[in-house]
């Protein structure tokens, strides 16, 4: 999985691509922890995420916890149908801030 960082209007955007699953979940977690040292608000661009497994969900959960602790805000956008399905089944969809197109 690749993560590209970019700042747009003072907001940090992390562009994820590839599979978010067991081998890559920790990457996302680390990235968010580093990012929180600079900013509280993070946007996760899921446009190129093709696969989301439970370990990915856990990474998102931990990220959300960390952001919340820092009183920041985490937004996920551009989620495709399959990933959305996972988020829905697991009930994550209701608790994460998912921005629809």
């Amino acid at each position, binding site marked *: 999985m690749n993560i590209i960082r970019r700042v747009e209007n003072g907001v940090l955007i992390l562009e994820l691509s590839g599979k978010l699953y*067991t*081998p890559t979940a920790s990457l996302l977690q680390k990235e968010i922890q580093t990012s929180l040292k600079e900013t509280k608000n993070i946007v996760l661009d899921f446009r190129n995420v093709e*696969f989301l*497994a439970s*370990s990915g969900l856990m990474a998102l959960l931990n990220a959300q*916890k960390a952001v919340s602790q820092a009183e920041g805000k985490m937004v996920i956008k551009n989620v495709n149908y399959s990933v959305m399905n*996972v988020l829905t089944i697991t*009930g994550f969809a209701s*608790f994460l801030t998912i921005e629809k197109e």
Partner: protein
Amino acid sequence: MKKKLQKWLLLFFLISFCATSALTYVAQTKLAERTAVLTIKTRINYLRYQIEAHEKSVLSLSKKIKEILKEKAANLALNLKSNPELAKDETFLNTWKSNNDLEEIQIFFPDSPKPIPDIKIPSDQKKKSAGETVFLTEAPCENKDSQKLSAYAPWGSDNRLIRVSFSCNKYQDFMEDLSIEHLSANLKLDNYGRGSMMIARNGKLISDGNLALTKQDLHDSGVLRKMYKDDEFHRIWNKKSGTYHAQIHGKKVFFYFEPYKNYMFLGIYFEKDLYRNRNKVLLFNITFLLILFLVVYVLMAVVLDRMVISGIKKINDSLKKITNGDLNEKVRVTTNDEFISLSDSINSMVDGLQQAHQESLQRINHELQLAYKIQTSQQPAVFPAFPDQNKIDLFALSRPAKEVSGDFYDFFMLDGDPSRLAFTIADVSEKGIPAALFVMTTRALLKNLTNMGYSPAEIFNRINRQLKEDNKINMFVTAFMGILNIDTGKLVYVNAGHMPPYICRHNGKFQQLEVDPEFVLGAIDHDYQQHEIQLNYNDTLFLYTDGITEAEDRNQTLFSQERLEKLINENPADSVQDTIFKIKSAVEEYEKGCEQSDDFTMLALRYLKNRLYLPARMDKIDEAMTFVESMLQNHSSAHTYDVLIAVEEIFSNIAKYAYPDRTEGGFVDISCAIGGDPVFISITFTDSGIPFNPLDRPDPDITLPLMQREPGKMGLFMVKKMMDSVTYTYQNAQNVLTIRKQL
């Protein structure tokens, strides 16, 4: 042939040369001798003439002598008549005798003691008085030493007589001396001093031709014996003339002798003189002939070579080509009519032969085609081989060298056991029809024994025994066979002296399968050992015969194992069909321009069965997912994503928790089945880790806010949610979890 002809030609010329030379020698010798004889004869005629002339003068001389004698007698008679006293005066008589060069004087008178010889005086002379002489001689003065030439004269009455005598011999010697001097002036036979004349008379050599020869020399040389009737001491000449070759004082001489009256003429030539001309002529002739013959010989040899030998050689070369099987060779020798007709005959013969050959070739070809058809019809050649299942991908190809092949491959599902695939590749030591028959036997045995359920080792043991028993021509087979359980991937194989196949595992490189090179089939008793390996998803086997590695290029360099390895490893992931076609065209390209040296056969098998055996490690998770993804490749479905998530969740779960005690971890066996109508996929995960039934666990409360959730419970929940069914059993100390999803 050319050399032989030249030898004979040379021999012929040598003989001709020798014969001509010998003939010239003889002819020239005869000519020289005849010329010599002719010269001598001419001289002899001359001598004869001289002798005759001489004899005439001798005759007239003797007449004169007789007159002189008569005169002397008359004178003495007149003296005695006038002075009878003197008749008894011896002194007077002796003086008279010597003065008149007389041999003898005798006086007869009536009272003399000497009887008056009874001389018959011719009556007309009796009346003669003193001073008148009567010449009386007893005979011609020849050959009688004692004879004398005598004259009588009366010197008074009473029969008083005197006789005065010349000795005959003395007279003759005188004559002879004259003649020798006379004749010897002309004893040389020609102006160059060659040849001499010798003259003998009455057995006495009167002229030696200035050669300082004696009668003894002539005797020693043997010529005398030829000249005389009996021996040299008789004076009777042989009446014949003749020639004689002899040696005198070490020099070769040639004689011609001819008797004449009491003479013997002897012409004599030293041979070196006699033959000088002959030798000159001979030398010239021989030199000339030698050059002539050499020129003619060389000319003839060249002409013969042009006309005959080169033609024969051309024909011979063509015949050699024809004998070596080139029936398209044409003989074209147009040197002369004979060769043209010979060429035509040979050509028409070869044409006939070629026609017959073509006919028989066609027949054989037809039969070979038939044999080829039978062989190929037995060899499965329709691909994909097993279209109704996707557990294996198999391709095979055989290229025969001589219509029928000594190679073969075979593969088939065992009768009554659709999960077991038998495959084999084999190479008979020979080629052509006999090898094909051997192949058929082997193939039939192999198929029957396999279908009877024997293990590969047992199959080979039995085939070996059977082939060995019937093998009268010492053929043998190298073979590899395997039986693959396409459900489990278990491969049992046995090798009888065949090249070890290549195997490519886990998407790595092709490497030779480790297998003992056991003994070939059909030669000796042998107990074959079988081996067993586990084939995994995407493992590929490549089997081949030595026709591949031993294909030769124009320089007779082998294609070689290295080249083959390089080629199959260029892209190990190619489909088996692509791999085989790639090798085939590479080998054919390699052989371009040479006769195909061997038949070749290849068989490649890729195990695609929906089963993956993996170490239970997190880094293998992609392999597990790729495997399942490939299973779903042909079944596009909206649920692919769900299935892959399930696989990810279950595999990571096992990797994380199933083998907590073992540092190196355990294995996971993933097997897939796709089928049914509507199509569903079923995936079974088997591990021998700690027993764990995911279904026992309560589902997490998904209504809880995220902050209150525990991590790690979500995965299996997702699986249950997304799959149509999830089942778990624990059997044989293994966790068996099966998920199922309609596609």
